[in-house]
Every structure is written in structure tokens, then in C-alpha cells.
């Protein structure tokens, strides 16, 4: 039986390949952007509150900072305790157009040695983990090869 591909969180990203994007919302009144998405009310305290419209975030941004997890995180992060722990890299990325910083895991194989603050990265689709029925999908950051 083919496994289904399910986003780890519904509504946070969409599209395939080069069309893959993080998805947030934008206030029609004040233009504030929200990721993770706000769907009920604009959080700008100076805004009377407009409609929150879905918006795709910029595909590329620059590294604000990065780190890695050398030890197995606790649940609800899903890992196989039978397998040795493989460190993962986390990248905080500044999106210029939206003027916000979004955290994400790096694409497989990207280590802290491959990264510098200010370097350009792009968002790509990735797999968080798989089980018998489901491939849980997520977003990942990957260097574009353009340096600071």
C-alpha cells in the first residue's frame, strides 16, 4: 500500500520542487505578515484588524544564525531509539521582503561547517520522518551557493 505524504503541520507550506513555499498570512489593513500563520486577528497592536490573507513567503533568505542538535531531543520529536543519533542542523533565516526570521532544519547533509551568517539559503521540501503509513513532510533550508 503506498504511503501518504502528510505535512507535519497543515497549512504552513505548499507546492512542489521550485514552487515549494512557506505559507503565512498577511493583514489586508496594515500589511503585517505572520508566520506561523495567524488566521483570526492581526497581532499589530496599532491595527484595527483587517482580513488575513494567505501569502507565500520569499523562497530565499539569508542566514541569521545556525546551530545543531548533537543529542537526541525529547518527544514529540520522533526518532528511532534503536538507531544511533544523527545530529541535525538548525538555521534561522532572515527574509528581507517580509522582515522576519524563520527557523527550520537544514536539508540533509548540510552541517554547521557548511554555513556562515549572512549566506543565502532557499527553502526546499523535505521529509521529517516516515512511519508505516505516512511520510511526514516539512520545510528545510539549503544553501544556494551564494555567499555573504
Amino acid at each position: 500500500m503506498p504511503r501518504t505524504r502528510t505535512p507535519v503541520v497543515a497549512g504552513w507550506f505548499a507546492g512542489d520542487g521550485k514552487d515549494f513555499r512557506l505559507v503565512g498570512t498577511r493583514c489586508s489593513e496594515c500589511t503585517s505578515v505572520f508566520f506561523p500563520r495567524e488566521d483570526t486577528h492581526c497581532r499589530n497592536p496599532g491595527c484595527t484588524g483587517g482580513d488575513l490573507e494567505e501569502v507565500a513567503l520569499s523562497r530565499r533568505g539569508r542566514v541569521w544564525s545556525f546551530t545543531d542538535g548533537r543529542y537526541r531531543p525529547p518527544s514529540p520529536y520522533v526518532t528511532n531509539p534503536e538507531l544511533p543519533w544523527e545530529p541535525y542542523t538548525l538555521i534561522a533565516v532572515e527574509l528581507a521582503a517580509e522582515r522576519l526570521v524563520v527557523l527550520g532544519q537544514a536539508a540533509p547533509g548540510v552541517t554547521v561547517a557548511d554555513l556562515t551568517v549572512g549566506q543565502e539559503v532557499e527553502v526546499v521540501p523535505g521529509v521529517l520522518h516516515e512511519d508505516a503509513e505516512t511520510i511526514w513532510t516539512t520545510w528545510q533550508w539549503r544553501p544556494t551557493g551564494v555567499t555573504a
Partner: protein
Amino acid sequence: MAADGGDGMTEDVAVLGAGMHPWGKWGHSFVEYGAVAARAALADAGLEWRDIGSIVGADTVRGGYPGYVAGATFAKALGWQGARVTSVYAACASGAQAVNTARAQILSGLADVVLVVGADAAPKGFFRPAGGDRPDDPDWLRFRVLGATNPTYFGLYARRRMAVHGDTPEDFAQVKVKNSALGALNPHARYRKAVTAEEVAASAVVADPLRLLDICATSDGGAALVLSCMEFARRHGAVNPVRIRAVSTVTPRYPNTVLDLPDIATDSAVAVPPAAETFRESIAHAAYEEAGLGPEDLSFAEVYDLSTALELQWYEDLGLCGRGEAVKLLREGVTGPGGRIPVNASGGLASFGEAVPAQAIAQVCELTWQLRGDAGDRQVAGAHVGIAANQGLFGHGSAVVAVR
């Protein structure tokens, strides 16, 4: 006029007593640690538990239901005597919320003398979110989606300092060297052994660039304070008590542009320009404004060194130096023993480990002992004004200014 709508300065509140249960991994209930600390604070104040009109407990989320109603839990453990009860939670800032609640009751005349207690019994390893599937909870999501433990956020901040300010891992290690030497002098600390830079460098990387000895542990511990109005203190014979002059409990201002635990993203600054000062800077600013003094008036500071790099960040956020100048301050010994403004004379979280709801209260205990001249071998000479600062998850600012 203060940003909070108040008119700025407030009256002082007296610290009549301070007490702690030593930090460690003792394997007992948080209730025991809190009760031991409370009895120590009462004895220090020369008061009976029955003299106390109100008790404020700082909650723990790790002790089941009794932890969520910590005020009543401690009151029962000490023996029901009818006191007014309050329980508060604000993550790492819970202790400061408890102090501020007690202060508000005293200044409004609801109570003359209040007992403040916080205690925790911490698990081994990483803190983890509450159980169940809760996709609306940022604290659950950051673990589920990213595996982002607390140390990974500390790693992000440390790497950012290295890139922007040129700090090095060797600089970070010197914070641990300083704090461990001070913790060795503190009988309440968990770790009482001086650590060398070589030992920090030889410890395992937990979240690049931070190593095990850069990151504070999770600990058991308990701390308590007896606070009163100045009139009660005089009647009680406390001629020149330590006085709390300000408590800052501010929230961030939109847009908050520094990635904060447990968030996955910052606010967007596209529609509203960010305030000139960051959230952490605003925490200290509010405390200074209420106290009517500034960083130049401080004799010493206790800051929340969840990591070595974060201690450096606090130097700048408290205005002890300009942005990017913290390492210079550290290298010149300004924040070390005998320096112009010693930071974490207690040994800090580096020597205690974090017992979440007790920690901000423990910081005020240290302010109290230093200002009284009772801090033994770690005494800051001529201590007259001290500040304690911390930050709780989900946007809780916390700073306390005490004077004598």
C-alpha cells in the same frame, strides 16, 4: 510617565528574610525544597509562619497538580493558618512575578508581610513540553517539527554574537571560569568546583558552538523571601533592611524581532518599525526607570546565564556597556570579583543549574545577602545597589532592583 501608565517610581518594600534549600539533584518533592527554604527565610526574618498574612507561590509545571497551585501547596506543608494565598506562573520569570505580586499586595495595603516561595524538582536531561498532541502550542511545535531544544536556541544566540560581535568560544568559556570560581564559594550552589577553560573546551558540544559546560543544567532547589511594608519592618526592629525599589515585569513590543524561545519565527517588521531597544533591553530600562537610577549606579548584578554567551548578552542589555562590548568588559575583569560591577557573584546558573520557579527568587536572595554584607567569601565590597534580571518563555520580562 512610565510606559505602563503608572507614574514611575513606587515606594520601597522591605526584605526581612531570605532562605534557600541548596540546589542539586536530591530526588525529593519540590514541596520539601520549598518548605525548607520558607522556614529558612522565616527564621532569617525572625518571624513565625503564623505572623504571615499572605503567601505567594511560584508554580512548577513538573510537580503535577500541587505544582500548579504552589501557594496553597506550600501553605499546607507549613501548616494551614488561614493566610491569603496566590499562585503564579511565568516560566523562568515566575519568581519575579511572585515577588511582584507580594509587593503589589504590600503597597496596596492588602498585606503587611508576605512569604514568597518557589521550588522545583527537575528531570534529567532536556526540558520537554507538556504531553499530548497540541499543534496550537508553540512549545509543542518547536519540539515536534524542529527538535529545537532550549540549548539549540542558546546556540543560535551564541553563533549570532560570534558573527556580529566577534566573540569566540574561548570568550564564552571565560564566563564559566569566572562563575564556577564564585560558585565554589557559595554553600547553596550545586556545582562547587572551579572549572578551567581547558575543561570547558574538552566538554562535548551540545548545540554548536556551545559545549556542555557552556550550558546551565536543570536542578532541584527552593528559595524564599519574607517581604513587608517599611512600617512593619520598623515595628519589627529592622532599622536598615534591604529594600526592593523596582520590579520590572514587561512584555515585548510588537514587532519582537529577536527569535525568542519557544517561537519558530519572529514578528514581521514590514508594517511597523521595531522599537529602538530590544525586548531584553526594555526589561532593564523599565526597572531603572521605576527605581530612578541607571546602570552607572549599580554595585553588582545577577543575570540569567542559561548559557555563557547569554551572560555576555545581558551585560549589553543591562547597559553595563555598549552593544558588542561585553567581551571587553569580561576580559578586563570589570564583571569579575573585585571588578567595577561583579556579575553573578552567586556563581550564577552556571553553578546552580536552573530550578525554574525558584531561580528568580534565588537571585533576590543573593541581592539581599550581598547588600547586607552577609555573602561571605563571595562578598562584593561596598554593595549598595543590585539588579537581578531574567526572561521567561512566552514574553515574560523580569528584573528586580534592590538597595540598602
